[in-house]
């Protein structure tokens, strides 16, 4: 096996690291030199992965422009050789890469736009689950409600942003001129999930974010109402909790409930 193994290792080094040792094993053609022919593989590797990243991070690409994105993509490709069978997974480290890369860490909105795009991608082909219906809820006896525990849709992902990344994404997606990036005084909670076939997101106001997070931890409805009361006053607390719940059901953000 040594011949084939050594050749494949050398070929891979040639593609990934520009090592020319493999050229010694390659024959030129009558029409072209071996380095140009081997260059087809070198170019294809980079171009294919840039294309994958461009598809997965469409708004980040729009924000940075072709040249800026290509530079980022090349740095990412160097830092993270693809280690998965599916190219779909290749860009999964992008938010973390942006947060730590010297060239981009000073612009935290970049990592947050990437985080949002990654979450939307993950929600798009995440697990299927039947959304919880209002009819299902209506059939639950009033005395059981305080003990009711809700299950978020399995595609639901909670993000927290320190910048106006969500607004930037929306403007870019709508092909509008994006606002200036800015640091937010208060962090913004965002929820991403899939409704039918559409990956969606929306910002959550602080009270709704708090109650969503507690719901996702399995806190029962009665306790959620108490939390709402503590958070923003007892007046109308149950109504507010119920109204959040109805909104989540309408938007397909929950999949199930059980009496805990």
């Amino acid at each position: 096996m040594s011949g084939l193994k050594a050749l494949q290792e050398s070929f891979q080094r040639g593609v990934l690291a520009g090592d020319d040792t493999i050229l010694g094993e390659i024959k030129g053609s009558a029409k072209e030199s071996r380095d140009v022919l081997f260059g087809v593989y070198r170019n294809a590797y980079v171009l294919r992965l840039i294309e994958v990243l461009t598809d997965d991070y469409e708004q980040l690409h729009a924000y940075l422009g072709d040249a800026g994105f290509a530079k980022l993509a090349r740095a990412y490709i160097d830092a993270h050789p693809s280690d998965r069978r599916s190219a779909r997974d290749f860009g999964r480290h992008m938010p973390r890469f942006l947060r730590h890369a010297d060239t981009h860490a000073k612009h935290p909105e970049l990592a947050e736009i990437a985080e949002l795009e990654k979450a939307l991608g993950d929600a798009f082909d995440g697990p299927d689950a039947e959304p919880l219906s209002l009819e299902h809820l209506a059939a639950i006896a009033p005395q059981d409600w305080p003990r009711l525990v809700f299950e978020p849709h399995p595609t639901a992902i909670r993000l927290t942003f320190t910048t106006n990344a969500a607004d930037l994404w929306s403007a870019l997606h709508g092909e509008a001129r994006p606002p200036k990036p800015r640091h937010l005084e208060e962090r913004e909670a965002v929820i991403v999930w899939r409704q039918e076939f559409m990956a969606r997101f929306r910002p959550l106001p602080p009270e709704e974010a708090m109650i969503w997070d507690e719901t996702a931890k399995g806190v029962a409805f009665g306790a959620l109402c108490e939390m709402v009361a503590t958070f923003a006053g007892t007046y109308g607390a149950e109504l507010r909790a119920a109204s959040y719940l109805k909104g989540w059901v309408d938007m397909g953000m929950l999949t199930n409930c059980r009496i805990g």
Partner: protein
Amino acid sequence: MSTTKPPFLGFGLGLRPQHYREILDGTPKVDWFEVISENYMIRGGQPLSMLDQICERYPVVMHGVSLSIASTAPLDMEYLQRLKTLAERVNPKWISDHLCWTGVHGVNLHDLLPIPYTKEALDHVVQRVTQVQDFLGRRLTLENVSSYVTFGQSEMTEWEFVSEVATRADCWLLFDVNNVYVSAFNHGFDAGAFLRGVPRDRVVQFHVAGHSHEESHIIDTHDHPVCPEVWELYRAAVAHFGPVSTMIERDDNIPPLAELVDELSHARGIAAEVLGAERMEPAA
């Protein structure tokens, strides 16, 4: 393991997300679809739902791009399990991938990389195909790839290598007409010799596709319509192999479905001219 040769399915297309709705809302003149296996190794959402609906209406074959059958890295059992699980969902007429490798040491170069045509590589591939077929419980179908380099250490021609793999590992072949054309141009061999050198009874599918001509070499880009020279080679392939399930492969610069259906009609027309209409009926 079933050893019956898969049926002639007629004329198919690669399933692409851009065409989901049009396929399901209409009745395009397409006999079957080929799906990229890796695109459906996901947990849910629209792609799997569309796939399920297509499978209800059309014969489907699965075509992978990352089996890496010729790699010296160990077989990726997790990948194979996912492939098997997808096959249980799709019930494909066959499962194909490429006679190539895609990486070693846990890296995937996302390319169909060339093999040196040596006895060592042949033994290695035959043993891996056997292992994969045993695991999947079915025969694999392997496709010849386009290549841009050849290795000094090769001891046989590509078609000798392909034929030996098919015979010794007892697998089927996907004869990619465009890839033969591209590699013949790049390496200066006779495409007809390749065609005549492959065992007839092993070929279950044809791919026909477009490419990019770079003067001194051709790159297999699948982003153009099929060129006249590839159609001519297709004509020769039909004459040699008889009725073989044929598919137009388009992966980039994807045109409206109607354009691909027209191109497929062209393939159908060539096959009808060569074989006569009575040999063109797909198996029920």
